[in-house]
């Protein structure tokens, strides 16, 4: 039993070490800007642009639901004027970064894992290595940077669309006063405390989710079973990591 725990712990630490080495190798791989920028652009297209639809649709609906739920609660206290800040703060501080990260893990993260895993299974990575091309630089690094740049942008879009959704339901449908919806929101939302903290969160999530997704693909057992397992692990691990880190960051940022 004790041996079992020890063995598991050691293998976890070893895995973490391999993951760190991979990330280190990818970030500090000798950069060749003329060649790597087109690769990063290509990957932003794959992980960022192609995630736009799901992010915008989810953002809109989550904003609308927030407004509807918030309204039914706030109206009991006659505080429906606080609907604006409630929707905006929930989105900017929590839901924007977190839901974007979860959707990103499901949409782009799993695809990254499967793609890299399949490259490994079909010996594309080995063959690249045999051509004296470093796969960390050619395959891993562009994907990492693409995720790193895309996710904060996606999170901003998510929050903006969500607030618009909240406006649609709150103001257009439920009849909260438009002026107070925006002005109370503006009075209560702070650039550095709310928007910047949300931004920091989404940067952290971007690093973690992309890292997990790429590492799971790069480290998978190159069989169809191994790839499917790695893809599942990507979604599970990155979701758990996002939620856990979110709690930690929230304590650091907003806890007193």
């Amino acid at each position, binding site marked *: 039993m004790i041996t079992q725990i020890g063995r598991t712990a050691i293998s976890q630490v070893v895995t973490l070490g391999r993951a760190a080495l991979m990330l280190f190798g990818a970030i500090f791989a000798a950069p060749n800007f003329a060649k790597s920028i087109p690769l990063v652009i290509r990957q932003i297209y794959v992980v960022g642009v192609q995630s736009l639809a799901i992010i915008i649709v989810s953002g809109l609906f989550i904003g609308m639901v927030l407004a509807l739920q918030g309204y039914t609660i706030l109206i009991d206290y006659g505080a429906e004027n606080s609907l604006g800040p409630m929707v905006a703060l929930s989105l900017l501080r929590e839901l924007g970064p977190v839901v974007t990260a979860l959707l990103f893990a499901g949409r782009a993260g799993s695809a990254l894992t499967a793609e890299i895993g399949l490259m490994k299974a079909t010996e594309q990575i080995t063959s690249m290595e045999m051509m004296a091309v470093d796969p960390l630089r050619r395959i891993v690094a562009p994907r990492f940077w693409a995720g790193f740049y895309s996710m904060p942008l996606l999170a901003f879009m998510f*929050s903006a669309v969500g607030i618009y959704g909240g406006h649609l339901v709150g103001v257009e449908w439920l009849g909260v006063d438009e002026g107070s919806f925006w002005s109370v929101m503006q009075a209560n939302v702070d650039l550095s405390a709310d928007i910047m903290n949300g931004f920091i969160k989404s940067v952290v999530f971007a690093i973690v989710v992309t890292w997990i997704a790429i590492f799971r693909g790069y480290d998978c057992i190159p069989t169809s079973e191994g790839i499917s397992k790695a893809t599942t692990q990507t979604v599970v691990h990155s979701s758990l990591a996002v939620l856990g880190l979110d709690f930690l960051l929230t304590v650091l940022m907003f806890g007193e």
Partner: protein
Amino acid sequence: MTSRKVEFWVGLFIVVGFLAFFTLAFEVANSGSVSSSDTYQLKAKFDNIGGLKVRSPIKVGGVVVGRVSSIDLDKVNYVPVVTLDIYTEYQNIPETSSLSILTAGLLGEQYLGLEPGFVIEGVGYLKDGDFLEDTKSALVLEELIGQFLFSQNDD
């Protein structure tokens, strides 16, 4: 290798992303001017600050003129000392002004209401670091109820 279509969409993606950020920063937070503006500090002692927090707004007639920057305890008298950051555009607050801890709505957030005093001969304006003397503490619900029951017994 990178086709024009990909470049176009990525460009659009980045532009929309930054647009979303600026919309949030200026439309939703609308604090581009506020949080970067200069402030000067005033202090005030209270008997009880209730649920007042750092960053709670300070309002004059509902207009935000500053925020609470820190809350400390006076080590000698054991009363809370609240430090206020007032935006420099609101100079000239008379010494006779009073400060009370108010609540937005029944269960809302607590904020500081600043009631500007009258300016008469011999009354100066508050400067950086000055204390506001006239303060009203927070209404604590339990105390209110206690007082209410006590006055009932008197009748």
